[in-house]
């Protein structure tokens, strides 16, 4: 029916032509340019702090710490993406984190020991499962009120922010609950909570195999249907860069070694002589980082490859169209909030394990960091737009700023000012970019 045709024929031609310009090359790779922009921003922040800190920001040690500190917010931000994409918001994640964290702490520090004794091998599983179940229930409840009672999610979760914070205090009358189960602590990282150098390499290689496998599989499928494919050079470039970045990251992080005291204990525990010249035992990837990577994969899959994810985006794009398409919009909203609750529980487990304690003030202001990470990562508060990798990058940008400023010794109030300004500027740049792209 159309007489006029937009000139962008990205999927139109099946020939693989050599691109004539850099912009053309970029288009041929079909990479999200906004994601590239975010990577560039991250690079600027990292290099800036590297210079400002006199060369301590980009050390393996600092980047390793950065990766651990980013994990909890990154995990929760992936869920926030879906909530915001569905034209909702969840302001209660910080308080919910406190309730779930407190519940998991009470369970393993005060309740389970009476039944199983201290440090029972099942303690951490029960505590984690109970926490996830509790998170799911709290999230589902809020989602239910939003979807079926028709109360705006802003109000429901604003109520949740106050209620859950109060509940978290009431659960232990404001006491600090500690210590955690020794296995549970591994979820938080630390000198024991990591997988060591060798397994980090294994994870890196598996990730590379995954990247190559996805590229080949995607190409094969498009060929069976006779669709336009990316030029071969673009596929190879994407694969090479992807694998290169993964392996470089593993290589670099593996240069962060255990402190000599801990290394010495490891040798003694294994019944071996500690070498006279010292020993380099890498930390390897921390468990919370692995959890965040797992969440990234699962959530990307949910957002892009299953019906639920598609429905969340459709509702965000046009709720009426989704309804007329026969989508059960209310159930979908409840599911999105339930998923958010589950991710809050995982984030809470990481936080509590890392602190080795739970306090009623746990997660204060976390909701704002989580929302900011999602929004910096390209999620539109108007709904319908957002990506999971973007949110993880957003979390990394936020945490880089904060860690960097701590490292350089910026005063706390100034840190808040800087983060606030960056948030607004990032969204402003994104809106301008989007307006340009759509016109």
């Amino acid at each position, binding site marked *: 029916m159309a007489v006029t045709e937009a000139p962008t024929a990205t999927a139109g031609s099946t020939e693989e032509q050599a691109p004539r310009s850099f912009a053309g090359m970029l288009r041929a790779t079909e990479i999200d340019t906004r994601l590239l922009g975010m990577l560039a921003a991250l690079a600027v922040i990292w290099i800036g702090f590297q210079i400002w800190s006199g060369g301590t920001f980009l050390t393996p040690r600092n980047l390793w710490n950065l990766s651990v500190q980013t994990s909890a917010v990154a995990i929760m931000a992936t869920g926030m993406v879906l909530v915001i994409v569905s034209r909702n918001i969840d302001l209660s994640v910080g308080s919910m984190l406190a309730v779930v964290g407190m519940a998991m702490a009470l369970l393993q520090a005060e309740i389970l020991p009476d039944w199983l004794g201290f440090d029972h091998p099942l303690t951490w599983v029960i505590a984690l499962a109970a926490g996830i179940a509790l998170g799911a229930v709290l999230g589902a409840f809020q989602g239910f009120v939003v979807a079926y009672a028709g109360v705006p999610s802003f109000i429901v979760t604003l109520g949740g922010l106050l209620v859950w914070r109060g509940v978290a205090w009431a659960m232990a009358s404001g006491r600090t609950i500690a210590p955690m189960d020794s296995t549970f602590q591994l979820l938080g990282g630390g000198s024991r909570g990591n997988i060591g150098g060798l397994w980090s390499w294994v994870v890196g290689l598996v990730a590379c195999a995954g990247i190559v496998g996805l590229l080949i599989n995607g190409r094969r499928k498009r060929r069976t249907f006779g669709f336009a494919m990316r030029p071969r050079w673009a596929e190879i470039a994407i694969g090479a860069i992807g694998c290169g970045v993964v392996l470089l990251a593993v290589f670099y992080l593996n240069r962060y070694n255990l402190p000599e005291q801990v290394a010495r204990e490891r040798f003694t525990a294994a019944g071996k002589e500690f070498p006279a010249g010292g020993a380099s035992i890498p930390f390897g990837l921390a468990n919370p980082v692995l959890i965040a990577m797992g969440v990234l994969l699962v959530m990307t899959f949910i957002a892009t490859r299953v019906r639920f994810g*598609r429905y969340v985006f459709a509702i965000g*794009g046009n709720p*009426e169209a*989704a*309804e*007329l398409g*026969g*989508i059960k919009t209310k159930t979908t909203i409840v599911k999105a909030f339930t998923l958010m609750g589950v991710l809050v529980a995982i984030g809470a487990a990481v936080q509590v394990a890392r602190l080795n304690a739970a306090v009623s003030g746990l997660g204060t202001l976390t909701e704002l960091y989580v929302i900011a990470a999602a929004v910096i990562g390209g999620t539109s508060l108007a709904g319908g737009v957002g990506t999971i990798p973007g949110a993880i990058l957003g979390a990394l940008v936020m945490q880089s700023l904060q860690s960097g400023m701590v490292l350089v010794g910026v005063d706390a109030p100034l840190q808040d000012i800087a983060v606030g300004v960056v948030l607004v500027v990032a969204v402003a740049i994104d809106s301008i970019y989007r307006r340009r792209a759509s016109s």
Partner: protein
Amino acid sequence: MTQETMTRVPLVETRDIRVAFGGVHAVDGVSVDLCPGEVVALVGGNGAGKTTLIKTLSGAHRADSGEIYIGGDRAQIDTPRDAKHYAIETIYQTLALAENIDAPANMFLGRELTTRFGTLDDNAMEDAARKVMGRLNPKFRNFKVPVKSLSGGQRQSVAIARAVHFNARILIMDEPTAALGPAETAQVAELIKQLKAEGIGIFLISHDIHDVFDLADRISVMLQGKLVGTVNKTDVTMDEVLAMIIVGKLPGEVTQAELDELRG
């Protein structure tokens, strides 16, 4: 009604449908029917209740009372899913597209094709979309971009493709050409004739009286929620239909003076 249509069982029939919003009777006891291979135009001024009536058929709105019969059997249509189950497809005036997702995703919204693992089969959906589009709008190329960046005509073809792809037996078109230029309008008219020849029954809502006379077999006129009457296109003049729309009088009842007044 002609002799021919009377002997056949209608594809779809509404009996005494009523819908009220607050105290306003948007649809007030309307009975219409549609036979295979037939185009019935629903006409009337703004607020006559046409869109509300067809929404009860497409499951977007529940009727307060009245019955719907599909192929002679009583049907219960409460949700859009129910309507699709009866092979009723609707092209809404608003198009009902999610602007942020691409054309294949919109076409299959709520009825996605999945792989044997239950994941979305985007390639298969794109393939199907390309096939339908090849028939409707061969120039359509932008299968991978959000619908937001398409032109009005292209969006319209996505909405039409969605309705056509799922083998509708009953097609409801609410102002399908409102956003289109003359060439595109002609194409839609061509499509309607083609679908009609395939035995699909079509309810066509239109403001364009010329379109109506060009495409419809019968014309049902609504005024203030009530059905003024249903007439065979061949039995009436445009002026008589206009009189039905504006003063609500059937061809036999309307006076010459009233017709003259309409003509201005």
